[in-house]
């Protein structure tokens, strides 16, 4: 025993030495690319480009790097996101690329790896993308967790990263300057549902907020609770459930005992679907039911009657009708296809209707395109400046970023739409947009039971 404690002691001593040695001896990293002032050339006025026989058109191919979850739990959403991005890239490249005023034609190429839906390799792969593969621009992985890990690398190498499929607010509160969010952040995910409820029935006062105990849903629901309470609602139940939960029956009994008129919350796809199904089977008497993530997915219709009346926030819906006119109305620049053009192009390319993940992927591409166009340059610093000043309208909606140091890159332009599953005249389940009012395609069913 005496020997052993001696061993332990000496180990600690060695360790201290090693730590001390390494503390001083970290090698100097190559000059940080962000500092290199390589811009300026493109800022020169270039009147010659319009003239016939201008200097030969220079072609630049920008490489976009990202990881996708080819395997693991995010596989489906991630695949849709990648398909959306690829569709954008194909359409730009087929149109001959982006022509800058100095005659440079910008086309795009991509490179990606499988992150297996887990964080372990994300940083390794993004570092590889940023250094070895020399990606010029980065797109985030799917999900807030993976994106948070990737953002560290993007920031470190001074690469612009557009995040999509990542709604958490916290990534934008870490002092990053190169990360920009395409999604409406979690803090505004469910607040519209509260407004919808208020407009449907001013007499409802009791709401229950129930949520998957995970990063994304907890942040969404916490923000929604504060908002609901500020609107004068009484939150009769605020409770999470474990992410692995399949059986909601005991939880539903507890909800029933609290007697809410409306339920808001949920988590991800599997638990959301299970929750909706069991809430229906139990016949819980509620008037309003808004659920995260699961409802906008097409396979939610597999629930049949249990799906009717369920409301879900969506980043984008095929029915949303943003036009160049709506851009003009708010003084933003319009870019890209119309909603129906995107939908038909997507269906032609992949055979099924795009989900909002797909639209988010396409929008991430449009954001880069918009930034390059307005910077009129491929210089990273100029693109960064263009993103900071961006005020863009696309089929996906309004895009504008927070530029304050506290929330840099947070999406402040885009907002959610809310869909509800309804039966159409022939009894088929269809998704209808029910909020905001100006984009609604149908009246919301209320009360749902």
């Amino acid at each position, binding site marked *: 025993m005496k*020997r052993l404690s001696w*061993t332990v002691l000496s180990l600690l001593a060695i360790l201290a030495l090693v730590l001390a040695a390494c503390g001083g001896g970290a090698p100097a990293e190559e000059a940080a690319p962000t500092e290199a002032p390589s811009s300026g050339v493109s800022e020169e006025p270039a009147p010659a480009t319009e003239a016939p026989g201008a200097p030969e058109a220079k072609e630049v191919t920008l490489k976009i790097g990202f990881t996708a979850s080819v395997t693991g739990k995010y596989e489906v959403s991630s695949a849709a996101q990648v398909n959306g991005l690829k569709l954008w890239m194909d359409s730009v490249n087929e149109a001959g690329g982006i022509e800058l005023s100095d005659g440079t034609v910008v086309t795009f190429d991509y490179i990606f790896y499988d992150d297996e839906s887990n964080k372990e390799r994300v940083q390794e792969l993004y570092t590889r993308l940023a250094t070895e593969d020399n990606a010029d621009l980065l797109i985030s992985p799917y999900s807030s967790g993976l994106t948070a890990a990737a953002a560290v690398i993007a920031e470190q190498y001074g690469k612009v990263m557009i995040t999509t499929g990542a709604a958490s607010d916290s990534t934008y509160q870490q002092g990053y300057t190169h990360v920009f969010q395409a999604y409406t952040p979690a803090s505004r995910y469910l607040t519209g549902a509260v407004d919808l409820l208020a407009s449907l029935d001013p007499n409802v006062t009791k709401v229950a907020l129930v949520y998957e105990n995970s990063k994304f849903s907890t942040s969404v629901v916490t923000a929604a609770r504060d908002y609901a309470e500020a609107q004068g609602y009484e939150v009769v139940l605020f409770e999470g459930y474990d992410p692995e939960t399949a059986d909601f029956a005991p939880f539903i009994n507890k909800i029933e005992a609290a007697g809410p008129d409306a339920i808001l919350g949920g988590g991800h796809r599997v638990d959301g679907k299970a929750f909706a199904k069991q809430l229906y089977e139990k016949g819980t008497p509620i008037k309003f039911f808004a659920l995260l993530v699961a409802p906008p997915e097409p396979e939610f219709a597999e629930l049949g009657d249990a799906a009717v009346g369920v409301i879900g926030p969506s980043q984008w819906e095929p029915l949303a009708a943003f036009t160049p006119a709506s851009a003009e109305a708010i003084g933003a620049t319009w870019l890209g296809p119309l909603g129906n053009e995107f939908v038909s192009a997507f269906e032609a390319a992949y055979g099924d209707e795009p989900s909002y993940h797909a639209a988010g992927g396409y929008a991430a591409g449009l954001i880069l395109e918009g930034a390059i166009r307005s910077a009129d340059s491929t210089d990273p610093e100029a693109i960064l400046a263009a993103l900071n000043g961006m005020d863009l309208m696309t089929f996906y909606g309004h895009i504008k970023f927070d530029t304050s140091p506290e929330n840099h890159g947070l999406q402040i332009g885009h907002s959610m739409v809310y869909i509800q599953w309804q039966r159409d005249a022939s009894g088929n389940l269809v998704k209808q947009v029910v909020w905001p009012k100006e984009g609604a395609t149908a009246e919301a069913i209320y009360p749902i039971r």
Partner: protein
Amino acid sequence: MRALRSPGLWLALALTAAAGAWPYFTGSASNREVAFTILLSVALASSLNILLGYTGYVSFGHIVFYGLGGYMGIYLLSERGVSLWLAVLAGGAIAGLLALLLGASILRLRGAYFALATIGVNEAARAFINNFQPFGGPIGMTLNFRLYDHYGGAARALWMVYGVMLGLTLLVILVSYLVKNSKFGLGLLAIRENEDAAEIMGVTAPQAKTWAYVLSAIFPGMIGVLFFFKNGNIEPHDAFRLHLSIEMIVMVMLGGYGTVLGPVLGAAGYQRLRGMLLVSPIFKNIQLAVAGGLLLIIVLFVPAGAVGWLRHRVPVLRKVLE
């Protein structure tokens, strides 16, 4: 310290150091990240080997030490503002403490019962942290980017973390070797072969097992802090991922359990292989299945692992391969 003159130890250390120095020569951050993942695995596998390889106790939930250490470290770094060095030591300390407490209880269980209990401990820890608000509950904790400025900016910080990781890995290998060649280690090996007989021969089995458990827990705790510091944020399901725990066992098995060099080779081989499969156009869609198939072949046909097989087949190498 006659033991320090053994070629087997130096072979393992030299291999690791050579591989670890590679990113310094190329100066490539991408190489560094690849090497970091490999070193992380080598260190985790080697520390698990102290328990699994020497005493034969299968800890299926060993990742609980990595997760808990990581949580402790990130909490201290981000909420309490302590330095990374202190956080790393605290991560190791809390992991060691947990192992000490657990060791007194669950190490009484033998064989599969112990394996199941370690799974239970890991799952209970994950579920608990998910509800534990000081550690951020389900949201976890995120390090502010400005924190890296204390270490000369993110770029330098990541090189520094890599350096510490390399040092720690070499240390684990050294400890693993010293344990194996000490009287304490011989006691552990005796426990592995036959615990009852070992007790009769004078090995105080409960104490010996507990200390092996503690030793094999301290390093994962420290490594967890390094990994999550580099990663920038921590969430319960990343910190206590049972799958990683099982991968650690796979690495030890690939290389040869109970040997010093085995876990080093096994971890490096496994990570290289997975890394290659991930970026291979043919296999990337079914890389998990391919990895499973390879593991099966090894378990069925080369159960002693690479080093065990070599030692068995080429007796000359027994002096060199520890």
